């Protein structure tokens, strides 16, 4: 084991503060909400068959499941709104510019990430500190999905509420021709979240494994560790957002 030849000298790593505390709070609150919403949502869509000899008055589990779904939805909505706000006041890794393509370079970078991480073309090892362009763009898609779930979800909920906030969404069923279509979209979109979660968790492990920058722990402590030479190179490219 000791005979392993090391091609490079041990690297000096530089600590970079990437995810600010509000971003990390947002991330974990969002993750928790999404998991709860998926679980309760699937139960509401297709409740399990429970045979019981009890009377209806002694049980309320389905009502409770829906209650949890609605509470999580409120937290999810406010958390989402907060993240949009933070996209304008947070550090450069939290900025909205990471998510919304504004120039052609964005798409070129995305293509490079595809070559590096998905097709794994030899010689391509794109290392980024914050979100890479492909990830950023996919998060933009998730924000759109968040929006769709909030619109359809609160659109359905508005008929059950007297509060002005959910009633802001009461136009959604009217626009889509009734609750049925709204429910259908809400249900289909759930699967986007399920697939996203699976791929997201895998890719975090992948980046940690391939780059060794502390990808997994970064959402805990907020920092990543990059090689001194990469740090110097990044510093030179002043215009880069990466």
């Amino acid at each position: 084991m000791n005979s392993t030849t090391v091609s490079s000298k041990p690297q000096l790593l530089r600590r970079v503060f990437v995810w600010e505390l509000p971003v990390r709070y947002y991330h974990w609150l969002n993750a928790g909400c999404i998991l709860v919403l998926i679980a309760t949502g699937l139960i509401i869509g297709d409740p399990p068959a429970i045979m019981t000899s009890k009377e209806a008055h002694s049980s309320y589990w389905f009502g409770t499941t829906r209650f949890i779904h609605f509470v999580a939805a409120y937290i999810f909505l406010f958390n989402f709104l907060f993240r949009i706000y933070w996209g304008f006041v947070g550090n450069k890794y939290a900025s909205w510019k990471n998510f919304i393509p504004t120039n052609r370079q964005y798409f070129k970078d995305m293509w490079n990430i595809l070559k590096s991480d998905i097709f794994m073309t030899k010689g391509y090892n794109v290392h980024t500190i914050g979100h890479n362009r492909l990830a950023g763009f996919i998060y933009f898609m998730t924000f759109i999905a968040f929006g769709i779930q909030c619109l359809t979800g609160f659109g359905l909920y508005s008929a059950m509420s007297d509060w002005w906030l959910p009633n802001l969404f009461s136009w959604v069923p009217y626009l889509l021709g009734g609750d049925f279509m709204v429910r259908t979209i809400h249900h289909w979109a759930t699967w986007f979240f399920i697939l996203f979660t699976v791929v997201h968790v895998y890719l975090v492990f992948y980046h940690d494994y391939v780059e060794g920058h502390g990808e997994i722990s970064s959402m805990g402590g907020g920092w990543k560790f990059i090689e001194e030479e990469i740090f110097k190179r990044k510093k030179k490219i002043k215009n880069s957002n990466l």
Partner: protein
Amino acid sequence: MLTEISTQRKTYYEELQDKGYSRRDFLKFCTMIAAYMGLQSSGAAQVAEALKTKPRVPVIWLHFQECTCCSESFIRSSHPIVADIILDKLSLDYTETLMAAAGHQAEEAMQKTMKDHYGEYVLCVEGSVPAGADGVYCMIGGKSSMDILHEAAAGAKAVICWGSCASNGCVQAAKPNPTKATPIHKIIKGKPIIKVPGCPPIGEVMAGVLVHILTFDTLPALDGIGRPKAFYSKRVHDSCYRRPYYDAGMFVETFDDENAKRGYCLYKVGCKGPSTYNACGIIKWNNGTSYPIQSGHGCFGCSEESFWDNGPIYERMVNAGGFGIEQNADKVGMVALGVTAAGIAAHAVATNLRKHKVVDELIAEGKQSEHELKKD
């Protein structure tokens, strides 16, 4: 000219007296209909006052692509006065189903009403209008229903769309909609339009809408898509007597199981009550005898837009267009999840093959530091 006609026309109360109804019957009707309309208790007096003093409102009732179930529902509404007052007395100047006249006489009657009461009459439409093939799918007296509708709507003070056909197209507009059946609000613009969807709508609801117009000379409060709030602001689900079973998570699994016998919630066998806005749970049908859920069958959402295409009737799920028959969101989702998992496994293997050099370097580097620390 118009005022002259108005004074000639009898009031509703006078007509009812002629018909042999007592004042007691009349007031009972007013109270009932006021309650249905969601008015406060003084509303009954307002209704009575209006019916006593106001002359009949001229009504033209057109039938296009429909099955006349709306009319049928209407004349079966619980109080006999409903049918009498509206059909005999409401001055139904033209309605194919019930008028005595035929042919040129009937056409003349309609033309006369449109001319004499221009801007004053209420236009009721039952059925959708076929927009395909220049409207030949529905011709009356040599004219297309499209032309008749435009002509009749021009002088109407309001348009009432009876039933799902006129409100959202109903079965004729179901895919692939060969006649291009079109609901009224997509054809008539710039007129107050009230939608009273349902296949058919509840008779008392129809009467309530008309009496509201007579009593207050205004349209009832409408929701975002033009349905009277008094009858369509709550879901069937919200007034369902089986709702406690829903909240308790006690569901009928199949129509022949023990739970069905016990009257549990029909949610899992496709009840569309949670997405259907109607008053069935409160007013019910056939003199308040029952309604679909009470007789053990789920609501299938007949008052909702494109309910024919929102099937299947006996499942919660929506079939996916383009994925073949019997493919719903969860099935497609599970396949997508399987494909994703396979993709991830393939990617993980590929990573270890294609990037082993990079990974090996990281591992070696880490191990070297570990080794050096061990030496100390």
